[in-house]
């Protein structure tokens, strides 16, 4: 599916540019994309290194395993393939907590750590495992208590009640998360691997 979407966006984009006499835009936009990819990656180096360093400390001190033990029963029905003592539980829980609190910066490094640990248990290293897909479904649809960025933008735009969207966001993310879990469960049953 990814391959189809990728080639669709690229070809339709080039076609539209050609038909609207805007073909020059394709070259500059392709080069910009390459540059932006590197820039985003470089920007991520700092924040990912910082949080992964801190996470290593928390791990060695035993904090992560305590957190994992406390929260594992809540999410364990969603990950039937994952071993009880897998190190991934801690990272998954930390990532979801960071997402719920709206700490996007901290969520990404915890999530990447979780993916590395899930990859350790993946029998087919080039193919996504079921646990990985469940984790990403939770991660992208995760309930948000504090949508920090958008509250900031509302304050900047002079809103009388910048936080009034917390309730609506909570409702929408709860619906999305519920459906993501359901969709994942249905696909999981059809795809055994």
């Amino acid at each position, binding site marked *: *599916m*990814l391959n189809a*979407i*990728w080639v669709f*966006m690229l070809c*339709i*984009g*080039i*076609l539209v540019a050609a038909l*609207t006499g805007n073909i020059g*835009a394709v070259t500059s*936009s392709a080069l910009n994309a*390459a540059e932006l*990819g*590197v820039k985003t990656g470089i920007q*991520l*180096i700092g924040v*990912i290194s910082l*949080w*992964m*360093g*801190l*996470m290593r*400390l928390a791990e*060695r001190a035993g*904090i992560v395993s305590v957190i994992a033990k406390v929260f594992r029963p809540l999410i364990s029905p969603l990950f039937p393939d994952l071993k009880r003592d897998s190190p991934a539980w801690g990272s998954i829980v930390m990532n979801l907590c960071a997402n719920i*609190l709206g700490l996007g910066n*901290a969520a990404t490094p915890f999530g*990447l750590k979780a*993916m*590395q640990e899930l990859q350790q248990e993946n029998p087919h*290293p080039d*193919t*996504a495992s079921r646990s990985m*897909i469940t984790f*990403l*479904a939770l991660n*992208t*649809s995760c309930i948000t208590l*504090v*949508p920090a*960025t*958008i509250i900031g*933008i509302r304050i900047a*735009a002079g*809103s*009388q*009640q910048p936080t009034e*969207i917390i309730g*609506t966001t909570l*409702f*929408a*993310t709860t*619906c*999305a998360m519920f*459906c*993501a879990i359901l*969709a*994942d469960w249905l696909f999981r049953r059809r795809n055994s*691997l």
Partner: protein
Amino acid sequence: MMQVVTQVTVWIIPALLFLIPVYAYWRKVPIYESFVEGAEDGFKTAIKIIPFLIGMLLAIQVFVDSGALKLLVDALTPLFIKLGWNPEILNVIPLAVMRPLSGSGALGVSTQLINTFGPDSFVGRLASTMQGSSDTTFFVLTVYFGAVGIKKYRYALKVGLIADFIGLIASIWIVSMLFG
């Protein structure tokens, strides 16, 4: 409420930066070495993501810059009018299409909507809710799978996009109910 939220966001990171090293030191963990070791791992991970990011951004950027995204939005608009939706909702279609593709792009669109219509208008509230309630699915999948070298995503994209779509519908419904 406002106070609590701002205080939590301001305090949580300094609190973690204080508590984790202090506790680890007390547990006799070699804290500096452990931190550097973890950070080195993070460094490698971030570098590994870059080729995947370039590939994904290439397709998205060409699609947006060529005007194809605008054509798609224009094509969807009459469909929603036919469905009898509140015409005001049509203003957020570009945001809905942009949201799973590009985080910075979507943030740009929602900031512009909030500033144009006012943060406390119907469109402003809807754009805020949509921005806060879904994620940049393509970016997340690219980065997370890229970091461990996974090339076959299987049904991950479908699940992510279904969640985005439900988040969108739920946002429109709840904002219409409460503020419509």
